[in-house]
């Protein structure tokens, strides 16, 4: 991987929330990178810290959330050190977001067109008439029929799929370098999901936008991503090219996730689910965080494993894998 290609590099990110019940360490030591134009997926069960990671990148955490440690380099600049004013120039302009729930994520009392136009007018020096034309072109691009009409519609009048297309149009409006899509299809019908994903994929390739796709659905990952980051309880546990993950998963958690996903060819009759739940951030075991649910755990797992590179571009956080490498040597 050439150094110059890296668009976003997150290193040792630590994000905590201060709540009345004490400090919630939602993200502990997360590191990953995204190259220009690359499509990367973060997968993991609910509560593993995916959304917190993405909101940390955008610096959009709620007041109680705080980035404790680490760095987030985007185009060579550390976002954590930027002033709020400089950060605003990045939001919507260079990094845009698509959220999970398109209805509640759109302002109910503002027309769709105005909401998209707002970004354009904010970040680009252009006149209103031009901006309007841009918005209509965008709506066209994301496959919305009769864009002039939709331009002056309010969000509640559109279907879920149309709303998410609007969100994508909004995200694309300033030609960002990176789009973070946090579970963009979870709230939609299955048939619509596929459409939205293909639009997202197609447009990102066409416009050369990198995508950070957050999901807990490995089917979605298979459809879109070039590379996969698996998160568990606030940590990255495995990170590899899409084929490595699906064909040679190394971490017990990744394996379990794959087993719990229905195979596309329906060869699997029974859907396995991973036993147990993600430990809440307040009661995380001291050693390997997957210890309680792991079928392969042993004495050494009571100490924390490190994220280690086993082959080029494939990183795993598990003692088992480390030992396997050690034994080979």
């Amino acid at each position, binding site marked *: 991987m050439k150094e110059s290609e890296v668009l976003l590099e997150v290193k040792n990110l630590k994000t905590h929330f201060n709540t009345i019940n004490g400090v919630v360490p939602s993200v502990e030591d997360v590191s990953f990178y995204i190259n220009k134009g690359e499509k990367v997926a973060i997968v993991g069960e609910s509560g593993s810290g995916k959304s917190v990671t993405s909101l940390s990148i955008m610096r959009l955490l709620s007041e109680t959330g705080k980035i404790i440690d680490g760095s987030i380099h985007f185009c060579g600049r550390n976002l954590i050190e930027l002033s709020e004013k400089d950060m*605003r120039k990045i939001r*919507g302009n260079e990094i*845009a977001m698509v959220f999970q729930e398109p209805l509640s*994520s*759109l*302002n*109910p*009392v503002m027309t769709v067109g105005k909401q998209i136009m*707002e970004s354009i007018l904010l970040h680009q020096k252009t006149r209103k008439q031009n901006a309007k034309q841009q918005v209509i072109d965008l709506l066209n691009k994301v496959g919305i029929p009769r864009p002039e009409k939709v331009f002056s519609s309010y969000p509640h009048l559109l279907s879920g799929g149309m709303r998410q297309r609007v969100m994508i149009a*909004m995200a694309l409006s300033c030609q960002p370098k990176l789009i973070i899509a946090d579970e963009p299809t979870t709230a939609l019908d299955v048939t619509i999901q596929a459409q939205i994903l293909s639009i997202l994929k197609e447009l990102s390739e066409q416009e050369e936008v990198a995508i950070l796709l957050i999901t807990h659905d490995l089917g979605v990952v298979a459809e879109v991503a070039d590379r996969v980051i698996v998160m568990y309880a606030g940590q990255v546990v495995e990170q590899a090219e899409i084929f490595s993950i699906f064909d040679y998963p190394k971490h017990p958690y990744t394996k379990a996730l794959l087993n719990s996903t229905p195979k596309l060819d329906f060869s699997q009759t029974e859907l396995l689910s991973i036993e147990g739940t993600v430990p809440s951030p307040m009661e995380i075991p001291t050693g390997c965080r997957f210890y309680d649910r792991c079928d392969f755990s042993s004495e050494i797992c009571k100490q924390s494993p490190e994220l280690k590179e086993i082959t080029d571009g494939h990183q795993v956080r598990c003692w088992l894998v480390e030992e396997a490498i050690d034994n080979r040597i």
Partner: protein
Amino acid sequence: MTYIIKKLFQIIPVLFIISFVVFIFVNVSGDPVVLMLPEDASNEEIKAMQESLGLDKPVIVQYGLFLSNVMKGQFGQSFVYKQEALPIVLERLPATFELMIAAIIISILISIPLGVLSAIKRNTFIDLFISGTSVLGKAMPNFWLGLMLMLVFSVYLQILPVSSRGSLLHLVLPAITTGTAMAAELTRMLRSQMLDVLHQDYMRTARSKGLSHFSVVYKHGLRNSLLPVITLIALNISTLVGGALVTEVVFAWPGIGQLVISAVHARDMAVVQACIFVIAIFVIGANFLADILYRVVDPRIKYR
């Protein structure tokens, strides 16, 4: 449009009820003839009046007569002014109107920044201070506030006129007096509304576009908080009218409030009736307007 027409039709029964109440009110408050004539009226005069009002007829017929008179805008002669009552009242309407509009504007101007600030800085000293002040503002009686303002700004500092109507300066103190209670109520409402809105997903979306905190709060947040505010203003119109009546007396403001009080004192029932009617229509009209505005602000409400 059909919605508006439908709404207008719904007003008719309300007017009927009001007319009925006014009719009952006049009939139980004593012999209307005695009330309507000066105290030294002769027996012949009383008899003539009774006949002209149809008081020798059964009650239901009397009500019918009353209704038809009301529809023609005839509330009878004012014996104080020696002329029809309605024109006297209508003449006072602009002054009251002016006072109320000014009071509403002032209360909005005060409450929007305070309510929003209070929500953004929730549970800080600023929030506590604003909340405390608004409780005070709500609890303060109108006449007392009016007198205090007059004392400070007109008598002591001498920067604003004491009373009566005239320039815009004359309007300042009466408008503040009338608007304070509503400003307090609106501030509290906006604060709680804003607290709710601040956590909505679309606020995060707005921030993710790179908008400044100020734009996010005022452009995306405020408009979503305004709905209940409009309802609240509409619901408070009657309270506001009540407040305006008192204020008018305190500041010798020549509006309906002052007229109705002096008419009650003089037992000029024709004028009192006309005043009640005009005020009622005023309140209904304000509610109607709020209903329309509500729909303009919230596109989710359809015209049904």
